[in-house]
């Protein structure tokens, strides 16, 4: 069946009244859950599994998919408004989104995020439709050495994420890598730094770190800086209007990063988080005004937002065409497929075309619904900021606690959230940047595993990283991206000196 015939089958599923209804339910539920600080697509899908029991698989999976990308779409809200990223894919969104909201441009920031998300989502669905079968070979081209190189490339971003002291950024990153080693080591099964405490066996969930370092630390800062608390009313929401100039400014990052996000989303294990970080750095590196990043740059917001949504559709490539779940969320999705009696795998496209193409076709619809539903909601969402500060602060604390508790219903996690909140606050006071910590935490674990898997495979020979073209080229890119900015600076300084 060609992609064209496939899409006709797909739209027959997606445009039936059942299809439309369930896409709509899916994206509404997804976007609402995603907006809660602390609740992301994994919890959203896990909640839906028991509900879909006994349903017809096509509409049920269309709905599940809607919940997934809906949650990623909505996830930016809490990052922008409260600096409380609910999922790892929207951490980078907070870098420029939160400053924008602080400057009284909350409405605009949300609108830009929605447009960028829609754009990223739509571009990647088109690519998914045209390339899904062909891209399945890309998805499996990465072995452990290539993953190591990819993670290394991601880590070079630390130098770009640091404002001020590079040494402090490095200390922060090293601390992140140290924290990720806590728990059972997958390669040996030994416990590392658990002190015999069973609650530490799985290490820390990403959410505990993110909500502690970002949301709770921010809350402490708000309490501390009481002078700044009175923004005037129109400043709080700001104009919603995204001007033509804004659109022009974001069009470049949106287009580029939709592709970057999609490709990284296709790789199992990489996904939306790494995509959003790499896209952010990418735009900062090529920007003429890199100093604007981190201070409310439109580009800095549009890049990760289009990228993380594009990566979400990209993640469906290995899931639908190979039956390989590339992330925690798609692993839960895979479970949902099995429960509904659908076996995702290389034969899904020929065995159950109505499901394969139905999900893809429904994503067009879902992205349109998301945009149409979200834009009118923005004024109301942005009003959250006009809630009196004491109340807002209590709400953020409450939702952070609920979000963390809902990971595994373990009270121990709540204490850890407070510990990381205190750490985040201390880091802010002594001006250690938090983004390198979280980036190192996310990438460091995968990098270590990929490194050690490679070492076992090669019997300890480091040449495995340079013997094949893929890891070699990624390592070269990582190296160059570190060296070139330094060289350029050095050259311009020499020029200045000569003059």
């Amino acid at each position, binding site marked *: 069946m060609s992609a064209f015939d496939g899409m006709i089958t797909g739209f027959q599923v997606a445009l039936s009244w059942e299809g439309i209804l369930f896409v709509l339910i899916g994206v509404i539920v997804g976007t609402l859950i995603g907006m809660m600080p602390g609740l992301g697509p994994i919890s959203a899908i896990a909640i839906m599994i028991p509900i879909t029991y006994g349903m017809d698989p096509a509409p049920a999976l269309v709905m599940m998919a809607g919940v997934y990308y809906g949650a990623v779409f909505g996830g930016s809200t809490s990052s922008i408004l409260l600096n409380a990223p609910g999922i790892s894919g929207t951490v980078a969104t907070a870098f420029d989104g939160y400053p924008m909201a602080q400057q009284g441009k909350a409405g605009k920031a949300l609108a830009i995020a929605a447009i960028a998300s829609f754009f990223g989502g739509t571009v990647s669905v088109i690519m998914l439709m045209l390339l899904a079968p062909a891209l399945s070979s890309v998805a499996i081209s990465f072995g452990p050495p290539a993953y190591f190189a990819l993670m290394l490339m991601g880590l070079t971003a630390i130098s770009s994420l640091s404002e001020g002291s590079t040494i402090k950024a490095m200390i922060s990153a090293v601390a992140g890598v140290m924290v990720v080693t806590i728990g059972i080591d997958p390669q040996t099964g030994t416990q590392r730094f658990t002190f015999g405490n069973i609650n530490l066996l799985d290490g820390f969930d990403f959410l505990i770190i993110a909500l502690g370092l970002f949301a709770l630390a921010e809350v402490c800062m708000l309490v501390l800086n009481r002078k700044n608390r009175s923004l005037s009313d129109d400043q709080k929401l700001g104009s919603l209007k995204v001007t033509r100039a804004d659109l022009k400014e974001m069009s470049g990052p949106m287009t580029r990063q939709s592709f970057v996000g999609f490709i990284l989303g296709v790789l199992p294990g990489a996904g939306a988080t790494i995509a959003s970080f790499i896209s952010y750095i990418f735009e900062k590196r090529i920007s003429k005004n890199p100093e604007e990043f981190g201070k409310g740059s439109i580009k800095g917001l549009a890049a990760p937002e289009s990228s993380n949504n594009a990566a979400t559709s990209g993640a469906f490539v290995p899931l639908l065409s190979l039956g390989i779940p590339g992330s925690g969320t798609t692993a*839960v999705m895979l479970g949902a497929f099995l429960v509904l009696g659908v076996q995702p795998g290389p034969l899904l496209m020929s065995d159950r075309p109505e499901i394969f193409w139905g999900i893809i076709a429904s994503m067009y619809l879902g992205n349109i619904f998301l945009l149409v539903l979200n834009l009118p909601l923005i004024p109301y969402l942005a009003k959250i900021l006009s809630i009196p500060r004491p109340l807002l602060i209590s709400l953020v604390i409450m939702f952070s606690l*609920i979000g963390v508790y809902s990971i595994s219903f373990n009270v121990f996690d709540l204490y850890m959230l407070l510990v990381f909140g205190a750490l985040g606050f201390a880091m802010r006071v002594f001006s250690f940047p938090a983004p390198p910590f979280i980036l190192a935490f996310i990438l460091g674990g995968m990098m270590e595993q990929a490194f050690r898997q490679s070492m076992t*495979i090669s*019997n300890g020979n480091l040449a495995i990283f340079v013997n094949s073209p893929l890891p070699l080229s990624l390592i070269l890119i990582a190296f160059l991206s570190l060296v070139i900015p330094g060289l350029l600076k050095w050259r311009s300084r020499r020029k200045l000196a000569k003059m």
Partner: protein
Amino acid sequence: MKKTIFTSILAASALLFAGCNSEGSTSGGTSEDGTFEPSQNIEMVAPAGAGGGWDTTAREVARVFGETDIIEENMTVVNKEGGGGAIAWAYIHGKDDSPYNLFVASPPLMFVPLNGQSEHGHEDFTPLANMIADYGAFAVSADSEWEDLNDLFDQMKADPESVTVVGTSAPGSMDHMQFVRIAKAAGVDPTKIKYVSDQDGGALTSVLNGSVDVFSTGVGEVVEQVRAGNIKVLGITAEERMEGEVLSDFPTAIEQGIDESFINWRGFFGPPNMDQAAVDYYEAKFKELSESEEFAEVREKYGWNEMYLNSAEYEEFLNTEYEEIEVLLEEIGLGN
């Protein structure tokens, strides 16, 4: 505003959920003539997150119990994730003699404590009944030169460093040990087997792109890939050929002259001091479930084999398995 309303509903339900979870154990229900009949909601714990093997088994069993009215009281599945099961086991262990807290288990209930990652093992709980059997499969890329297990093991005997095995679980756990067990029986030096663990979904990928050589996993995980012609199965750990399309094509290790097997059993347990009357009750109910037509459909849907054992048979089976695994783990230097 809508958001505020929705979030408060969510918060309320989260609290409600938490409330349900923390209900204490009450060991009522045993009448004077020594028989047990549940008089309240039964909690069925899946010691992992939604969507995995334990979760699916628990949910299907709870659903069929409810639909067939074999057990009339409501059975609720609760996911308690963490520590490869250790968190849930500690929780059930604390339920002492409650007849209303069950959990689903499989070989990790032995592997995890043997690897020193849980204080509680199978001997700390009351076995109720085993329900199903699943088996391990050893798969290689479709263009591999190995045609059967003996080709693979010959190569491993000649040059152990040239072969890498990948699985999803940690070393010393199921994917690793099922391979070690069969390889050792074939004469491979078990201390020289190179095993890497990939828990981020990359195991199959690594076999397909040739980074590693052998994928040690469950039979159910490979069927679709075999049908698509991406991989081939050199052998499975069942004692006899399995039934079903594709499945019946997989040769067992035994028929290739390697006298060893491995069962991925799945059954149900209760807290440490569950009353004998309650054990008798559940044992009988699980037997009824296992023999029901509805559960036969479930087995077929997931490709599981029937393997009912009552409480006493189960305990004996588990103890024999445990000893074998313990010896093997010590031999490869992973024992405690």
